[in-house]
């Protein structure tokens, strides 16, 4: 979204967006310096840093926007019904897996009784429809895809068990932070402005509908109607503000990672985040851009 709008601004395109289909490929591209920055699930970013990979989290991609989905006409009616069933998650290192542990704890259930399998996000809705899995825990627009197609039902949204839930974060290579901080700041400023544009008061819904159109067609290669559903039903299904990395949010993720066996030692907030760019973007204003306009400010 930032790329599309910024192309109409005086500064022009701020960065080069590159589409991937899975998080492991993104991880490899980041480590080999093919990519200098990436959006990835927060636990994966923390795990990379804990393993000594020189990257830092500088900003969030969004808040909320993940849900656990089951078959509409299937046997799973409550969280307890997931015991012994197959649930797809995007990665072992994902908040979508951690939310299952959190929900299990709140329901007094042993999360290890769920059979969790890793699956690439674009495959989960088809797998649910075909009966290959009983449920999936995934970010949008895949819960919307199952709902829209009529075979899926949201068992719960992440916010129900995890207030201020975060999933995707913006990760930047340490060498880029050190040598090109102005480029990182420009990127974070642009994302901050996009977030504010999507949450822009009375224009919020119109902006989301327009974003669904151009992101679906030019970036996600998905049906714009699907993204429209994900961004507006309800309007706070995915939120784009506040996007600054907050210590308490990440310390909860680290604790859950430790408890669920995907992180073998503690790591401090300062080791895996660099908040100076979020602080630098704190005074940003929404993009001045409307559908059909050929300028953005």
């Amino acid at each position, binding site marked *: 979204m930032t790329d599309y709008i910024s192309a109409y601004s005086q500064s022009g395109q701020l*960065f*080069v*967006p*590159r589409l991937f289909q899975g998080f492991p490929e993104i991880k490899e591209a980041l480590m080999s310096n093919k990519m200098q920055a990436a959006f990835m699930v927060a636990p994966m970013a923390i795990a990379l840093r804990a393993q000594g990979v020189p990257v830092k989290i500088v900003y969030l991609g969004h808040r909320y926007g993940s849900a656990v989905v089951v078959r509409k006409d299937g046997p799973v009616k409550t969280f307890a019904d997931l015991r012994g069933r197959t649930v797809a998650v995007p990665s072992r290192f994902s908040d979508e897996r951690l939310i299952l542990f959190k929900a299990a704890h709140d329901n007094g259930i042993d999360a290890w009784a769920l059979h969790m399998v890793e699956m690439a*996000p674009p495959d989960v809705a088809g797998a649910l429809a075909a009966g290959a899995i009983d449920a999936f825990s*995934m970010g949008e627009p895949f819960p919307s895809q199952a709902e829209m197609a009529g075979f899926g039902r949201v068992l719960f949204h992440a916010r129900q068990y995890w207030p201020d839930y975060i999933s995707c974060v913006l990760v930047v290579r340490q060498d880029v932070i050190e040598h090109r901080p102005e480029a990182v700041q420009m990127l974070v400023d642009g994302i901050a402005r996009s977030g504010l544009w999507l949450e822009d008061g009375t224009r919020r819904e119109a902006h989301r509908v327009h974003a669904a159109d151009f992101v679906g067609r030019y*970036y996600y290669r998905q049906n714009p109607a699907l993204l429209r559903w994900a961004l507006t039903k309800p309007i706070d299904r995915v939120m784009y503000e506040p996007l600054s990395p907050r210590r308490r949010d990440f310390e909860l993720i680290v604790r859950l990672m430790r408890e669920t066996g995907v992180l073998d030692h503690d790591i401090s907030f300062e080791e895996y985040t660099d908040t100076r760019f979020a602080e630098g973007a704190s005074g940003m204003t929404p993009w001045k851009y409307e559908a059909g306009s050929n300028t953005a400010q």
Partner: protein
Amino acid sequence: MRKLLFGLVTWVGAVTAAHMALNVNWSVIMNDRLPLDKRKLNVAYIPVT
């Protein structure tokens, strides 16, 4: 024979031009040719929130 060759060259040229226009990401190629300090950052994303 000459007509056939002309047709073949035209067809290959048209397909190549269409491929370069539709499938090649020129912004990536042009960006990678810039000096390191002038390059825009390559940012990876997947089609999920």
